[in-house]
């Protein structure tokens, strides 16, 4: 019987993943995340043992195909500008506002 080796995920990987996930973690948070992340990863890594040769993937179980809507305007669902902006913290002249993004 093999002894499971706990793989420790390096903090640089954690940092990279946090960046991809748009989570702004402090160094402290990153540090505490590391062992938890590793132990969960260790738990799910069990899946590597499973033989899935020649098995195709399933990404949904609806059993449906070709589900379409007709090309029609659904005006009753369209929000007014006021409704669209009603939960926004920063707005200006009908726009949502964020700190300047430099592009173009």
């Amino acid at each position, binding site marked *: 019987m093999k002894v499971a080796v706990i793989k420790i995920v390096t903090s640089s990987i954690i940092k990279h993943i*946090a960046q991809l996930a748009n989570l702004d973690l402090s160094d402290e948070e990153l540090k505490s*995340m590391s062992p938890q992340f590793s132990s969960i990863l260790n738990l*799910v*890594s069990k899946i590597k043992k*499973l033989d899935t040769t020649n098995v195709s993937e399933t990404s949904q179980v609806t059993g449906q195909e070709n589900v379409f809507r007709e090309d029609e305007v659904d005006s009753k669902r369209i929000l007014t500008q006021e409704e669209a902006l009603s939960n926004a913290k920063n707005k200006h002249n009908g726009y949502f506002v964020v700190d300047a993004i430099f592009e173009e």
Partner: protein
Amino acid sequence: MLADKSISEIARAFRDKEFSSEDLVKECLANIEKYNPQINAFITKIDKDIVLSEARQKDRQGFAGKSLLFGIPYVLKDSYVTRGIMTTAASNVLKNYLPQYDATVYCKLKETGAILLGKMNMDAWGHGGSSENTDFSPVHNPWDLTRVAGGSSGGPAAAIAARMCLFAIGEDTGGSIRNPAAWCNITGLKVSYGRVSRYGCIAYASSFDTVGPMAKSAEDCAIILETIAGHDMYDGTSSKNEVPRYSQKLATPIKNVTVGMPEEFFQKGLDREIKKAIETAVEKLQKLGVKSKVISLPMIEYGIPVYYLIGPSETSSNLARYDGIRYGETRSNFTGETMRRIMIGTYALSAGYYDAYYKKAQKARTLFIREYEKALNECDVILMPVNPTPPTKIGELINDPVQNLLADIYTVSQNPVGVPSLAIPCGFTKSGLPIGMQLVGKMFAEEKLLQVGYAYQQMNSWHNQKPKLTP
């Protein structure tokens, strides 16, 4: 207590003017006032005056020709958007969010005349099995206030157990209806994927999420399901299969039903009292003519990995919209548990790990589907435990992320497959904690599950037991 009655009894009483919707709503409001402070089932309570005037309005309109749910007070897990009513998914990220539209399930219930009392506490975003991962304080189990109510639909389950409402709409991604149902001694149905529209249900893991009823009995669940099920043009994954009149066919005899007991689900890790209770339940079913046989679901050990790879992967994407720009607070408001799930999912989908984790899990999912198909060819219904243990002490699971995951072991494998499962009460531990079992069926076999559940509940009264609460 009026709220002890079944929905059909209440509907009859409404019609016969034995008592009014207002009487019932008043009783529920009183229970909320008395017990909610201890239980913390609610995140948002609809204003008393509004609720009462709605009830009076129903009473005035009369009940003839109306749905059985007309004038019945209910609650929604706080994962359903309700126009103008605060909706949080139990997360500070949405702490002041007032949705601009209504979930389909809420629309349907509104149309049918059911009365919404509030939005319920849960594990934030559905991320948890104990309703402790909430930014609104944990839900306490009405049967033992030092214990958790289960999750993620812990608030709805506790509210039904404490008779604060007649039924609830929960949401089940990996056991979130069944687990709290079992721990709070109520009945909960995880429907087949696509049976009920998910439009307006705040997504946890889109390909697992199901919208289902929680109530005291299988009979009540049948009545609710036939109201909320059906195709929705706003949900492309909702099924076009016809919705049976579940409640009309509940009394169908079950004597030729074969129940399969997967041996792997009754082995190490399962609490002995729970095992015993389920075995007793099988004996009772046998008295009704049900045949039982031992079957095998050997892939159970891969249930947790499949669930904890695909679920977080999808959640990492579903929660990407919460950027604090159009609504809500910034992403730093996610709890540690939620951040972990987002991180695991991001990792499983990222370049270099995708094949080994996400893709591998989707392949394993195919194998799970085959395994359930095979098992459900050998029997009509699979019977198994819901939780490995009775409700845990508050703080026990939330502080141990891995244990937290393992608590879902029996309920996580049905969602990747899509099959329906009915959780029903089947006894108590010696210390008086509820025990539940689940009946799993083929895709869209809710009718069969409800019939077995109904038959079982006709010959015992576990589901009628209620916690002794003092204000």
